[in-house]
């Protein structure tokens, strides 16, 4: 136990950052199996010993959900994996997911004291290690549930925000139903992020464990069409609603040729491949297998798209991005992996037209070269076109991954929900919208953000919703507070 304690800082400083074992790049660029294989126990312990257990814990301040990083890392160093899991799961319900998809290099690891003189502690690898250990060894571990409150809570959307809130609210004793538009729960975790980065089995297990604590998941329900928010509150007896429907509306570039056959939004391309499993030989859902593919964008979605195209056989699979590599918002690890897999990076390049053949199929992408100019509002160097630099990239599939916006489907049918000029929901400090009892979090509030921020919103909002419900009950019951476990409490309808 005290092994870590025995090491002096100087000794810890000598330990090099451990590498993540990964599937061979040649093999994995042809299959959808997970790339990273996970740290073996000994290596994880060795890596954990690198932590200096700082007093001011910079890493924790960088974590959007303030995971007590040194606490779980030192337990790993000591070989106390169960203890590490206890700490980690207390702060974050879905560490197996965040450990895999968080941009650690911009959050915790960038602030790690060891990054000042070398490499930071591999916090992400360790988080994943502990999560995977827990999922293997804590089977049958049941969360403690508060006694039933009798409140019914509806959650719209089963992405990371919705799933996290569902778990928290169920543990607080509320009756939780999650409504999901797709036929399978998980949101971006199942339709967007590919199997090779986040195995769907992990998401499935998390969903199963939510069901085990009483969360109901109703798929194939589109809120705004099948039911409105008012239906849920006035007719279906839900006293509070958490809207976590993401930012799923794809943005197209608006250049000529976008409706040629072979042009996809990243959402469509990835949904066909991930959710509908079009990469499997016997799938009922088709997707075009490009001989040469171009994916436009520089974020995680673009990276997922281009690596998917590569796996479906594209040679080359080219990523076209209008800024330079340093500005790409994608996770650094994905950029490295993409490069190893043979993805071609065409940086400082702006697509201006998608070219088609006489039969309406994509035959190429006309682009213009860019150079970096003055910084723009975001502080990143603004790319400016170089006159006369037009050139063509031959390809038969083009995937546009330049961003998403708020989907107006739900807000249109609930006019009393206040949205900002971009269509995102406006919330107060408690994440409550302009409609009493209706809360929101994740991408529908923040704009396309991250999985961990969505999870953080889910957790925080569950707490404010719980308080809202209890206060409401108190007001209605003249301050007696507890509503007991029986039946629906006498909360007035909105």
């Amino acid at each position, binding site marked *: 136990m005290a092994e870590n304690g025995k090491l002096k800082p100087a000794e810890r400083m000598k330990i090099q950052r451990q590498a993540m074992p990964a599937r061979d790049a040649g093999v994995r660029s042809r299959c959808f199996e997970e790339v990273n294989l996970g740290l073996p126990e000994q290596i994880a312990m060795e890596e954990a010993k690198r932590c200096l257990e700082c007093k001011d814990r910079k890493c924790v301040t960088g974590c959007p959900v303030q995971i007590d990083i040194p606490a779980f890392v030192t337990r790993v160093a000591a070989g106390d994996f169960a203890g590490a899991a206890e700490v980690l799961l207390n702060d974050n319900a879905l560490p197996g997911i965040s450990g895999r998809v968080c941009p650690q290099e911009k959050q915790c690891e960038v602030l790690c004291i060891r990054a000042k003189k070398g490499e930071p502690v591999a916090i992400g690898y360790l988080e994943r290690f502990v999560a995977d250990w827990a999922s293997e060894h804590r089977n049958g571990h049941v969360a403690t549930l508060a006694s039933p409150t009798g409140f019914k809570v509806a959650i719209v959307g089963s992405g990371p925000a919705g799933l996290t809130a569902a778990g928290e609210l169920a543990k607080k004793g509320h009756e939780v139903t999650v409504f999901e*538009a*797709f*036929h399978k729960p998980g949101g971006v975790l199942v339709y967007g992020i590919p199997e090779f980065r986040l195995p769907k089995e992990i998401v499935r297990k998390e969903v199963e464990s939510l069901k085990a604590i009483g969360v109901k998941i*109703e*798929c*194939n*329900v*589109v809120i705004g*069409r*099948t*039911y*409105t928010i008012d*239906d849920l509150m006035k007719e279906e007896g839900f006293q509070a609603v958490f809207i976590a429907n993401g930012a*799923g*509306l*794809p943005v*197209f570039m*608006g250049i000529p040729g*976008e*409706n040629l*056959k*072979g042009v*996809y*939004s990243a*959402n*469509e391309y990835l*949904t*066909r491949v991930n959710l*509908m*499993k*079009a*990469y*499997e*030989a*016997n*799938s*009922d*859902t*088709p*997707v*075009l*297998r*490009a*001989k040469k593919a171009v994916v436009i964008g520089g974020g995680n979605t673009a990276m997922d798209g281009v690596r998917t195209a590569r796996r*479906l056989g594209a040679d080359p699979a080219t990523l076209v991005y209008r800024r330079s590599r340093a500005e790409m918002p994608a996770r650094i690890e994905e950029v490295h992996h993409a490069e190893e897999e043979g993805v071609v990076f065409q940086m400082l390049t702006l697509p201006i037209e998608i070219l088609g053949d006489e*039969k*309406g*199929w994509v035959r190429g992408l006309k682009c213009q070269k860019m150079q970096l100019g003055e910084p723009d509002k975001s502080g990143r160097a603004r790319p400016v076109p170089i006159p006369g630099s037009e050139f063509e990239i031959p390809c*038969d*599939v083009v995937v546009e991954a330049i961003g998403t916006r708020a*989907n*107006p*489907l739900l807000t249109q049918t609930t006019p009393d929900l206040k949205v900002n000029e971009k269509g995102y929901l406006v919330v107060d400090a408690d994440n409550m919208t302009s409609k009493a009892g209706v809360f929101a979090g994740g991408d529908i509030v923040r704009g396309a953000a991250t999985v961990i921020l969505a999870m953080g919103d889910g957790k925080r909002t569950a707490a404010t919703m719980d308080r809202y419900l209890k206060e409401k009950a108190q007001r209605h019951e003249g301050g007696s507070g507890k509503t007991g476990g029986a039946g629906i409490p006498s909360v007035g309808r909105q």
Partner: protein
Amino acid sequence: MSHRVIESEWLAPEVRRLVVEAPHVVRHCGPGQFVIARATSEGERIPLTIAHADRQARTITLIIQAVGCSTRQLCALEKGSEISDIVGPLGKTTDIEHVGHAVIVGGGVGTAVIYPQATALKAKGNRVSAIIGGRSRPYVILEKELGVICDAVYPCTDDGSHGFKGFVTERLKQLIEQAEQKVEMVLCAGPVPMMRAVAELTRPMGIHTVASLNPIMVDGTGMCGGCRVQVGGQMLFACVDGPEFDAHKVDFRELADRLTTYRDQERVAKGNHPCRSGAAAEVR
């Protein structure tokens, strides 16, 4: 949620009528709307018009033409079997107003789309004429049902085996020219060339014409953009902005072309393996 098939019958060769339990869909659905169904837990997501909704029985009627492997899976469903997934209602409802004389034009299974519209148009006090077409007599569907609702039904067949011999557009032209009450509006649904021909016919006459489009879809909620269509030079998503649009503004050529995206693949599917083919199509 399970979706039991309550009734199942062939309406025409390769055209099946299914009455399916869908309690959550009937609550808000209206004419012009559709659902997305998956026959099995591994199935493709297929958009299908809600041909009829029975709020009491909490069922919807789907009329499906077997064109590819996924629609054939659905057509193979017998009474008592289950459909894995149905989501809806999706899309906007038809704008139905009192216009006077409205003509609804249905080609093949498109007739399933115009059937609920006939009821709604009639409820608003319109005179409703239906022109429905098929290759030959057995392919003309819902004639009896439409006869109960509409003021007149004009079946048309390519070979003249039933009703008018010729295209629905020819019959429509006659009707517009000869009708004692001026035709104020045309609603059409069917194969793209038919809808395009209807639009070209009514354009010079200045008759307001609406077409119900059938592009490729995935989610049906606006998140993939696969259903995008050009309407009046604007890119719109048929699943949320439609599926009905001003036919005089729709780029039908592009719609027809985009519908052929996975055609080669379907051809493979029709070959050796009746359903599951290698799903990832080679481009071209």
